[in-house]
């Protein structure tokens, strides 16, 4: 029974997350409070959305390292468009369209030019970080459409409301899990990640599959950048912060059960992975653990989760060694 549950792709991380939850709930009285729940949200909702997009790229056996930079860049583009006189909603839409175009370029570089995705998106990472620093003159800006006092409907919807990001995370995760599991888009993504040559021999346009998944990944990252800029009503040109988010998103994807080698992915798993990271962070902070230990515990947790995943993959496919 336990083995059967564990063979669910998300099974192992669900168990690990529950154990973590129970541990913190029993050891700190402040953990299960609504106030803490609200502080937990910004830890995990943005990561969950970015991870949801990254799942598609990693299911292809590729990786997108530029999502942190995309997250950083999009709010500044939005700010510039607003400064140029565009109303906020069209500015938001154009910003997201530009994020899509940049993602499509990532996909083009990988599928058509043949650059390894690690390298192509690393290049994009630096380009976008650089552009952001240039257009912002390294200065923090106030996000248009938000105000420090009071709030607008726009800001309530796009990240400002207490549960806004949570609702977006749940809606996006469900939508993308449906896309992955129940549509041609999803099955072509798995097929292209599992056996690129075989998928193309079967008639799938694998290059197009690559391009559209990088596009999807980029737009989720850009969207999270917008949500966070609206929530905090400001955007800071801080590449080190945004790249820390990149690593958290990738960690959530891997912990959630998506294989880096491609051919298998789960959006719900990534959400739970993000939740796990959020709980771990939040719980350690509440317990008063020295901040210096946070990364150490995070690293150990990722290694344990990966070990379990490799085992689970063996059980699933019945293959002798690893995935």
């Amino acid at each position: 029974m336990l083995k059967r549950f564990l063979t669910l792709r998300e099974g192992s991380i669900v168990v690990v997350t529950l154990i973590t939850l129970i541990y913190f709930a029993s050891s700190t009285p402040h953990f299960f409070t609504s106030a803490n729940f609200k502080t937990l949200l910004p830890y995990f909702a943005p990561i969950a959305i970015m991870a949801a997009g990254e799942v598609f790229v990693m299911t292809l056996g590729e990786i997108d390292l530029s999502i942190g930079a995309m997250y950083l860049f999009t709010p500044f583009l939005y700010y510039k468009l607003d400064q140029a006189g565009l109303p906020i909603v069209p500015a938001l839409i154009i910003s997201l369209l530009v994020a899509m175009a940049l993602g499509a370029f990532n996909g083009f570089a990988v599928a058509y030019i043949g650059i390894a995705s690690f390298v192509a998106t690393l290049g994009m990472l630096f380009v976008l970080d650089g552009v952001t620093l240039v257009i912002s003159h390294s200065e923090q800006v106030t996000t248009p459409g938000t105000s420090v006092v009071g709030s607008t409907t726009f800001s309530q919807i796009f990240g400002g409301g207490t549960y806004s990001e949570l609702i977006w995370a749940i809606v996006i995760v469900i939508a993308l899990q449906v896309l992955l599991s129940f549509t041609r888009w999803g099955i072509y993504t798995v097929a292209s990640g599992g056996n690129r040559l075989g998928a193309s021999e079967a008639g799938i346009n694998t290059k197009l599959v690559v391009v559209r998944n990088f596009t999807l990944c980029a737009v989720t990252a850009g969207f999270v950048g917008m949500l966070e800029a609206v929530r905090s009503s400001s955007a800071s040109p801080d590449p080190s912060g945004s790249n820390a988010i990149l690593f958290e998103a990738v960690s959530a994807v891997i912990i959630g059960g998506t294989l880096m080698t491609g051919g298998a992915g789960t959006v719900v798993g990534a959400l739970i992975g993000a939740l796990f990271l959020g709980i771990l962070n939040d719980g350690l902070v509440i317990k008063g653990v020295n901040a210096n230990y946070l990364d150490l515990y995070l690293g150990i947790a990722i290694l344990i989760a990966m070990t379990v995943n490799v085992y689970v993959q063996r059980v699933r496919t019945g293959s002798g060694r690893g995935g």
Partner: protein
Amino acid sequence: MSTSSASEPDPAVADKTISDEQVVGPSSAPDDVLRVEHIAKSFGPTTALRDVNLHLRKGEVLGLLGDNGAGKSTLIKILSGFQKQDTGEMWIKGEPYAPKSVDEARSHGIDTVFQDLALVDQLTVFQNLFLQRERVHKPIPFLANALMRRDARRALDEIGIDIPSIDVPVARLSGGQRQAIAVARTISGDADIILLDEPLAAMGAKEGAMILDLIQRLREEGNVSIIMILHNYVHVFAACDRVSLIQDGVIALDKPTAETSVEELTEIVVEEYRRARLEAQVGVGSPAGNGASADAVPSADAVSSADASHSADASSGSDPGSAPGPPAG
């Protein structure tokens, strides 16, 4: 049906001697479903196909033989739309045929089981069976999994392939079962021309017999025409109406199986090895290049049309013209 061509002479051999002006042989007929003329394909400096002429009649099973690297798989990949030929033309049922993709080839009724099977290990049996031709709901195109499961089960039962569960990833299946699924995927489609690249590779005798039975049944029904690459001559004579042998990127022999024998086919291959060994011995000093290689081919034809006594001459080393031929592309 196709064995009616047995009464015809063998122009394939005769034509080769007129060098460039080859026609498709045995002479093409109105009921040809597929015709291929003067196909050539190179990969950089390597010439895979030099000048291939081929035809396929309705309901016919054509066996394609040839040494490793002779160009069999390249030919299949061109026919299937996966690769594009450098020169040459193709027709399907009289219509010009120049597929840009596997998908387009499929829309013309040509479907292929590639050597690597094009299966995705992580997907289940039924997902692989319907890969790239998924059934979807309307108006929102979600996958119709229940429908595909049912149809997959039915298709496998009809074909008589024993797969324990259609919900397991194909990674868990044996080599023969995987092959069977790849074949089932192709024949359960709408294709009327099926290309099989080594359908019996990596298969035990029992599983191989299952696939051969399947092909035999398709042959009896006569609705689909089949080209398959084989290595085992026994399989050729068991399953094929006609056999074509590729050597050095051209069709060196094309005969109904009724008119040839295991001995004749073996002799050609033995001769090829003999030539290859001779080349290796004559080695560096002899002139090599494309001009010389053109000579090599008619000599192979001569062997194929002659009896064993001729090849005895060749073995004595009195055939220097063929010696400098390059190794098979």
